[in-house]
């Protein structure tokens, strides 16, 4: 129970990688704010799972693209648990298309959720975190696409690349307050998000993965846990968890 007494906020915590992060942090003893936007039933299931293992959780509905909602989420976390130690910016969407066919609204939605959502949550948490004067952990979920680019994902790759540059900048700003800011760049992880990809795409990706298999959400969550519970001398890093896909 290495995170006993710590409080974490996980955005997009109702499904996929986010859900696994929530469960892993709760298992380690953290009280976890499970943020979700529309998946009310799925989020409630995650909370139930936490409670079954004797953990503490709080459901907070908030659209991360709206700053005021992120502020409300942070306030709810403070009201309920009294402090915040860890923020995991995980909420993300995908609207893939070739640029020639990409609609402006698909660009906007992906940038607003994956990139601006992270800005909103970091900004909302910052002052409470500084006030506590006890350091902190900000962990941003980027993507392999943000490092290598990906055909059909100009919007997603731009947002995830932005997450990396943001992470490095914030790491420089907050280092002197012992707040570490790191990014994780998952490769192809088996979730609802990747499930809908065409089989041809999945097979092509698989042929490039050194470890010859897709990743599991737990394999991202364990790196989040590593960064959340220690790793005090790692900041501004981008940790690829991709089975060798980017090699």
């Amino acid at each position: 129970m290495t995170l006993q007494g710590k409080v974490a906020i996980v955005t997009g915590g109702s499904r996929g990688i986010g859900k696994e992060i929530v469960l892993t942090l709760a298992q380690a003893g953290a009280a976890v704010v499970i943020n979700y936007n529309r998946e009310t039933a799925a989020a409630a299931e995650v909370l139930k799972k936490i409670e079954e293992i004797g953990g503490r959780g709080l459901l907070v509905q908030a659209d991360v693209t709206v700053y005021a909602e992120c502020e409300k989420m942070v306030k709810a976390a403070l009201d309920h648990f009294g402090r915040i130690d860890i923020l995991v910016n995980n909420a993300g969407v995908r609207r893939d298309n070739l640029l020639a066919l990409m609609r402006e609204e698909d660009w906007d939605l992906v940038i607003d959720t994956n990139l601006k959502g992270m800005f909103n949550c970091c900004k909302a948490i910052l002052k409470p975190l500084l006030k506590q004067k006890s350091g902190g952990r900000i962990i941003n979920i980027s993507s392999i696409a943000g490092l290598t680019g990906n055909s059909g994902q100009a919007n997603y790759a731009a947002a995830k690349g932005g997450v990396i540059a943001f992470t490095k900048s914030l790491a420089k700003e907050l280092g002197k307050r012992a707040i570490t800011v790191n990014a994780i760049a998952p490769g192809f992880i088996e979730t609802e998000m990747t499930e809908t990809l065409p089989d041809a795409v999945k097979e092509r990706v698989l042929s490039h993965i050194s470890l010859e298999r897709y990743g599991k959400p737990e394999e991202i969550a364990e790196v989040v846990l590593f960064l959340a519970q220690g790793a005090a001398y790692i900041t501004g890093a981008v940790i690829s968890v991709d089975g060798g896909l980017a090699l």
Partner: protein
Amino acid sequence: MEVFEKVKSLISEQLDVDEEQLDMDTTFEDIDADSLDVVELVMALEEEFNLEISDEEVEKIKTVGDIVSYIENQIS
């Protein structure tokens, strides 16, 4: 001068400087405070005086006197 005294004591506490070093014209550069230090100081001031200082106002703060006159205007 009550506001000045309170501000001085907060700055001294937050930024670990001698109160003697501080007068109305002291800039944050003079006392080696960077912008993150100023942000944290503002948070402490907000709590002490029970007011809110907008990000735009924070950007304008250069001297101890800037803070004192802003707070005096707000609470008068």
